[in-house]
């Protein structure tokens, strides 16, 4: 696509194409999650069009999965919004990391690019921009990565919706477990140190114990306690020279997350 138009807008299209190309592995990785999301959602209380609307306007895999789980558990909207906020808060770290590379761009670009920020787009774009001087980078690489990830997510959501409605039998307990399996596959690789294990255990046990609180508030409080446990253990780890300096520690945590 960029080869035919290269004469007109060489730099921009080539950059856009490069961003899209470098995102292909991420698109492949996200595909099964898109399908699972669509399939799970198709069997839940949401109409197909609201499911697709969620992919179109929210475009945040983990938040969308979590929302499905919470909707199934009859959580109140306020709890779902609060959870969305907490779960997506990590994107602030991403945009703060990329800010030097977009700060010089006109406002309409800065308003646009943020919409495409996901774990994957951040990882790809940061790897690219990192090797360049801030202020010399255009928006097209980021846009190429973001748009391709976005289109990819829409396609696989549709595929999952079609699959889910083709097999209404999946509606029973079975598909709940697909979500559990997906979450485990996301959680386990993140348990890289004792503090993460302890945080997860605390949140899990308390969430179960407080499962009958109204509006899923028990879940929210369990998460807060779990995070506190993790932080407590981090401060101790830092004291015992686990984290010698603040800056590199933050960097590595961000990178750890980006993978």
């Amino acid at each position: 696509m960029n080869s035919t138009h290269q004469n007109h807008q060489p730099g921009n299209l080539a950059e856009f194409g490069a961003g899209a190309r470098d995102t292909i592995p991420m698109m492949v990785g996200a595909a099964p999650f898109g399908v699972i999301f669509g399939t799970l959602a198709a069997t839940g209380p949401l109409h197909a069009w609201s499911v697709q609307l969620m992919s179109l306007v929210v475009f945040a895999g983990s938040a969308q999965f979590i929302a499905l789980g919470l909707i199934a558990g009859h959580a109140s909207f306020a709890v779902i919004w609060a959870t969305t906020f907490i779960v997506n808060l990590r994107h602030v770290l991403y945009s703060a990391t990329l800010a030097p590379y977009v700060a010089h761009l006109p406002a309409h670009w800065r308003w646009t690019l943020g919409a495409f920020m996901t774990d994957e787009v951040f990882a790809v774009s940061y790897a690219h921009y990192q090797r360049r001087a801030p202020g010399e980078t255009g928006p097209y690489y980021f846009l190429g990565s973001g748009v391709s990830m976005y289109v990819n997510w829409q396609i696989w959501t549709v595929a999952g919706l079609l699959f889910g409605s083709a097999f209404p039998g999946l509606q029973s307990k079975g598909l709940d477990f697909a979500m559990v399996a997906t979450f485990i596959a996301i959680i386990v690789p993140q348990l890289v140190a004792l503090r993460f294990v302890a945080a997860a255990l605390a949140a899990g046990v308390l969430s179960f114990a407080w499962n009958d609180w109204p509006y899923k508030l028990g879940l929210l409080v369990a998460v807060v306690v779990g995070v506190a446990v993790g932080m407590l253990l981090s401060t101790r780890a830092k004291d015992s020279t686990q984290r010698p300096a603040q800056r590199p520690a933050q960097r590595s945590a961000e990178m750890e997350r980006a993978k």
Partner: protein
Amino acid sequence: MKYALLILGMAVITYGIRSAVFVFGERLSFPPVVRMALNFVPVTVLTAIIVPMTFAPHGGAAELTWRNSQLVAAAVAVVVCAVTRKPLLTIAVSLAVFFVWQMIV
């Protein structure tokens, strides 16, 4: 449809979070303690959601028995993922275990 409101709210929240730093610049910076806390959010939220689903799939009391296929398959998923680190394999194997278990129990 009430869910449209829910979804639009989620969209506004997500977009606001993603764009704030780009639009308002670096005046929005997070203190280290918040950054540290954010590291633990994904694991804790996801775990908090699945533990009740796994241990008490029918609501109510915990079903700590080999007849609970959610629990058995989840344990398999944890082991497969810890050993192989492959998300797709984890999901495929544990789903297979789940469906087979449901049939035989």
